[in-house]
């Protein structure tokens, strides 16, 4: 992979994770995770339930319930872990939630405009007024086939599972992140909804935008092609490979991965 992409990381990495350890309360969940994501790449993290996939996503986005006890992570060459969640968002990191949160009484579009303008302010960009924002939002809603009436409903309140996930991708489309971490964006979706969501994500792929898919099932990778596939087990990445690794998993399941020690991943090695 290209070592130099001119993207500030020095080595071309947008996200570099080295030996991250994290715990919730007394439970150590991540036991040394290494990962390098370069601009434009789509990575998939797969693994059995409880392997630490969602914890990794939460740690990268700054969820406070997870205490980082070791290792480091840089985003575009800057220390990621010292940033508040909103600063990570402003830097261009987006987390698509496995369980999008309801905020009663707060309109969907109002919420998103507040978010976009907060991010723009943090970046020293001009805020969008209501009219410009509405035009932008309408255009992006088409991407995931959301009804315009949906904009005035309260954030995620009374949404179906599919609507919630489409809303996450819609938010991603408006916020235009450099790295989108999509945590089980496929869970609870029927085949049609999965198709819509995947199409949305694919449409947002760009040479300067990376995606980290966290998923349990290979099915998602039939719709979104991943450049790299990682298998997590027991709080570590135990195998990494190309898209063909997903096919192998489909045949073998995850049982083999339980109890495996981490390999020294090629990506982490390249960064040393």
């Amino acid at each position, binding site marked *: 992979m290209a070592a130099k992409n001119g993207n500030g990381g020095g080595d071309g990495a947008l996200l570099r994770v080295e030996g991250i350890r994290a715990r919730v309360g007394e439970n150590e969940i991540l036991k040394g995770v290494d990962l390098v994501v370069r601009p434009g790449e789509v990575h998939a993290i797969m693994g059995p339930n409880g392997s630490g996939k969602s914890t990794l996503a939460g740690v990268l986005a700054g969820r*406070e319930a997870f205490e980082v006890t070791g290792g480091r992570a840089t985003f575009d060459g800057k220390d990621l872990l010292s940033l508040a969640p909103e600063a990570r968002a402003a830097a261009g990191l987006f987390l698509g939630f496995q369980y999008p949160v309801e905020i009663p009484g707060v309109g969907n579009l109002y919420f998103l405009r507040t978010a976009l303008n*907060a991010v723009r302010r943090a970046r020293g960009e001009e805020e969008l007024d209501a009219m410009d924002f509405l035009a932008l939002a309408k255009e992006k809603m088409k991407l995931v086939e959301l009804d315009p009436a949906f904009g005035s409903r309260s954030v995620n309140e009374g949404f179906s599972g599919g609507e919630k996930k489409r809303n996450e991708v819609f938010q991603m489309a408006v916020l235009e992140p450099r790295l989108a971490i999509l945590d089980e964006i496929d869970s609870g979706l029927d085949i049609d909804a999965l198709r819509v969501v995947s199409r949305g994500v694919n449409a947002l792929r760009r040479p300067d935008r990376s995606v980290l898919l966290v998923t349990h099932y290979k099915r998602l990778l039939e719709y979104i092609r991943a450049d790299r596939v990682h298998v997590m087990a027991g709080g570590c990445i135990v195998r990494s490979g190309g898209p063909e690794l997903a096919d192998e998993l489909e045949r073998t399941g995850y049982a083999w991965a339980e109890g495996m020690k981490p390999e020294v991943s090629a990506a982490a090695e390249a960064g040393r």
Partner: protein
Amino acid sequence: MSTAEQLKELTDRKYRYGFVTEIDEDRVPKGLSEEIVRLISAKKGEPQFMLDWRLRAYRHWLTLKEPEWANVHYPKIDYQDIVYYSAPKQKKQLGSMDEVDPELKRAFQKLGIPLEEQMRLAGVAVDAVFDSVSVATTYKKKLGDLGVVFCSFSDAVKEHPALVERWLGSVVPHTDNYFAALNAAVFSDGSFVYVPKGVRCPMELSTYFRINAKDTGQFERTLIVAEEGAYVSYLEGCTAPQRDENQLHAAVVELVALDGAHIKYSTVQNWYPGDAEGKGGIYNFVTKRGKAMHKAKISWTQVETGSAITWKYPSCILQGDDAVGEFYSVALTNNRQQADTGTKMIHIGRNTRSTIISKGISAGKGQNTYRGLVKMMKSAVGARNYSQCDSLLIGHECGAHTFPYIEVRNPTAKVEHEATTSKISEDQLFYCRQRGISEEDAVSMIVNGFAKQVLKELPMEFAVEAQKLLGMSLEGSVG
């Protein structure tokens, strides 16, 4: 910093309206006696019927005990240690705003009250009460052409004694309760509104109260009478300067809506809540009640963010058939604030309807109590009530309590009550912050979303102010 720490920091913010204006005052000595009641009445040059009424109230008050049933706690009030009357000294009658004491004007400006040009532009008539006496009344003439009376209570006593005598105490009698009796005995001023038959008052009427003189309990009295088919919307908003000693405020508001009349009464209350340890702050013990006759409607909307203690139950007596009562409330308590608030809907007439929407927000160590009574009298055939009481908790040290009282004496009446309690969750905050919204803005947004059902009932110009106020108070309370 953890979320808990950040919330705490937000919670610790200072009250923004803490200042004192230096003005010469005309005040009576401390304490309460028949002599003081006579002195107040004399200072105000009142007719005999007013003095008699005050004295009856005072004598009745002597027989009463301070109520203790509310879910609030405070040190015993020494009623002999209170100054019952203080008025800014005025050298002469004021013909225009230009003559108003510049100190006063500066104080109003600090509070953001648009008394001068802004006010005219906003189209709001303001009867400004500074301490206890009205100093400026505008728009009187325009309203006068329609026959609408909007003036200070003192002026009403002088200029419309027959109206005052007829309606004063007709909804909240001087015997009603401890604080109402006290108010009747010593009230210094307030507002008076009279809307004649069939007249729709063309502007929002608005009064800002402000407590200024040290150790001065403030006893306002408001009386609004809407004749048959009349309509009026009245706004009340208050802020008070920071004080170390608790200040007692025992106001009375009476609304009379005759057949087919509609009175909309909106309040934004932002008095000094006391510091983070609960020192200082206003004791807000208010009696508000309206009487609605045949097909009349009374709507109370309140946003209560201030005061150390709030004790108030804006109520509706739905006396006439088809009368409608509404109560929309947001009460926010932060730090050590306590609120025991709600409403009473007394259904007497046939097919009377009432709606209660109460939103309680507790942060810091705040304690928030909803207490409401829905009473269906025997005569209330086909009456209906819907009540919804929602509580939002912010942090781990606050409390929310709901005491709904329901009395139904007519089998055809219907009463519905729904209640929820929720917390601002770490998940909600994280979701907002992950999208780039600061914690402070997130809390403000979540709280405003929670209160939306009530805020939308406020007149437009107030709704914006109230939204900011919730955010500010939660900065001082989380959100």
